[in-house]
């Protein structure tokens, strides 16, 4: 191709949209905000600036998805999550470019972050049918009973994704929520939401049922407040909230007795072994007593 022909090719800009209830709507408010390169300040794209009504709609979609997803077998959830990793693997180059732009990383470091994200997802996919053995079990009791504890999903969890790691961080907070059978409403990193919005496309082309994951972009503080106060949200992951905002949100969430996961005091190392803490944060323990037969 000659140089003149290359120059005549007009680039096709991507309209980034929300991912809510398995669909890709614009913000109900019609608002967008400019997303820029953190290094040069170059304009990258317009992202939807979600309103509290988008948050409400996302919660409705998530609630609708809870019975099906939490009722699916753990094995089936593992298969679906593994499928997500497959789809993500197939779009590594796109995500490497987006992560490089979003976080101002070199190509090789961005590619490494995407690979780590795929691996992290596979790791959590494997946990779906194993967490019950870790978090539950048979309890010895002083009586002729089988006493069994089993972990069950909390329900709808609102997740404030970490601000500094746009894909690996997102995957690290989202995967444990849905691996355990919850439905998630995710508020993407405020200044670098594009990889998260593209991740919605990966989820849509996997077998994740509509509404299990809902991804919003916009001002974290604006979206977090209605989610924290929402009576139909059962858990709140404050990972991406600044310290003072996190306190306000926790106070607000206390009114409806939500499970709250506080942000780490120091910046988290997303490449480190995550452990099972994020899995067990969104589980409720159900204990049943059953009489032992003769």
């Amino acid at each position, binding site marked *: 191709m000659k140089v003149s022909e290359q120059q005549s090719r007009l680039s096709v800009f991507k309209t980034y949209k929300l991912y809510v209830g398995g669909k890709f709507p614009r913000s109900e408010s019609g608002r967008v905000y400019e997303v820029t390169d953190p290094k040069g300040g170059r304009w990258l794209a317009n992202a939807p600036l979600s309103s509290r009504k988008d948050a*409400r709609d996302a*919660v409705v979609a998530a*609630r609708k998805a809870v019975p099906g997803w939490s009722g699916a077998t753990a094995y089936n959830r593992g298969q679906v999550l593994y499928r997500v990793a497959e789809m993500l693997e197939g779009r590594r180059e796109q995500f490497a470019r987006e992560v490089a732009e979003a976080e101002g990383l070199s190509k090789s470091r961005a590619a490494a972050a995407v690979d780590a994200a795929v691996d992290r997802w596979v790791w959590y996919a494997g946990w779906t049918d194993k967490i019950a053995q870790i978090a539950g079990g048979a309890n010895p009791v002083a009586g002729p009973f089988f006493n069994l504890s089993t972990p069950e999903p909390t329900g709808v969890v609102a997740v404030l994704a970490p601000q500094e790691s746009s894909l690996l961080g997102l995957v690290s907070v989202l995967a444990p929520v849905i691996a355990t059978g919850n439905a998630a409403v995710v508020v993407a990193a405020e200044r670098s939401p594009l990889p998260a919005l593209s991740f919605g496309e990966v989820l849509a082309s996997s077998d994740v049922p509509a509404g299990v994951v809902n991804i919003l972009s916009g001002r974290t503080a604006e979206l977090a407040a*209605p989610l924290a*106060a*929402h*009576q*139909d*949200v059962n858990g709140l992951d404050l990972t991406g909230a600044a310290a003072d905002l996190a306190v306000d949100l926790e106070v607000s969430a206390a*009114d*409806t007795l939500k499970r709250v996961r506080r942000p780490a005091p120091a910046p988290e190392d997303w490449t480190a072994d995550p452990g099972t803490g994020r899995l067990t944060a969104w589980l409720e323990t159900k204990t049943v007593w059953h009489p032992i037969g003769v």
Partner: protein
Amino acid sequence: MVYRYARRYAGLVTMSSVVPAYGPDAPGRLAGLADVTASDAALRRFLHGLPGVDAVGLEARAAGLGTRSIKTTAKAYAIDLAISMIDLTTLEGSDTPGKVRALCAKGRRPDPTDPGTPHVAAICVYPDMVAVAREALGEDSGISVASVATAFPAGRVARPVKLADTADAVAAGADEIDMVIDRGAFLSGRYMEVFEEIRAVKQACVRPGGPEGGTAAHLKVIFENGELSTYDNIRRCSWLAMLAGADFIKTSTGKVAVNATPPNTLLMLEAVRDFRDAVGVQVGVKPAGGIRTSKDAIKYLVMVNETLGDDWLSPDWFRFGASSLLNDLLMQRQKLSTGRYSGPDYVTVD
């Protein structure tokens, strides 16, 4: 449009004032139009003489009215008004007396955490549950008992059975009767048969002797718009029912695929408006089926206000046939009063 008919028949009726369809003067007003209902041929001529419906215009108008933004105090007013207009309905084969009693309790006090919540307009049940609902509501609740009758929802039984069904519900204490028309007769052009049937059912709504002797249960006539196929048919059916003495006209049973839609309800609202202009009798409208969200309900209220005005913005003249709508209205009401979004965990499971 229909004002032409108003002029043509203006000489026949005295238009001194508007009277309610269930008032003592309504039959006299309708008698002024006796010539159009004198024979099958005259009735057909009249109904087919009604102007055709501009379907595109109707749908555009209904969609346009659905775009109004109703917020803050206006929204609070609309939500309370909508709650007070609900015919809280349970029409399932599996209805039990316990379920009907629970529904009555909910109708009286939709949100027990907020005594300022208005009660619903009526409880709508099958005829055999009327007595249960009547007893559960008591005498002073201000809530009516509505009963579907005439072999709801199909209406495919002989007329004596329909009349017995109606009389039975009235005797059991129903304040309102929701009858279904014979769609088979209407669609095959036997308008007079439909007309006479509505009249006969209206007669059956009259309470037998006793303290309330002579008074009658209000009659709502269900068209089942989804089965009438065309907008023209809905307009004809509206006039037919109003000429026959319907107190309310109702879109549908809620038992078929297409129920109340904004266009077909708008069409009925226009028919009611034109009927009042022509005859001087005010008839109510009840959309039923498929109205599940506060947003939808408010769209209907906007339509009523813009088409008919204040006169119809009361539970006496406009009703919603609904069951799940009430929960959504209550959640919206809670959102307005507390500022935080509510959830289905905070309303009853019906």
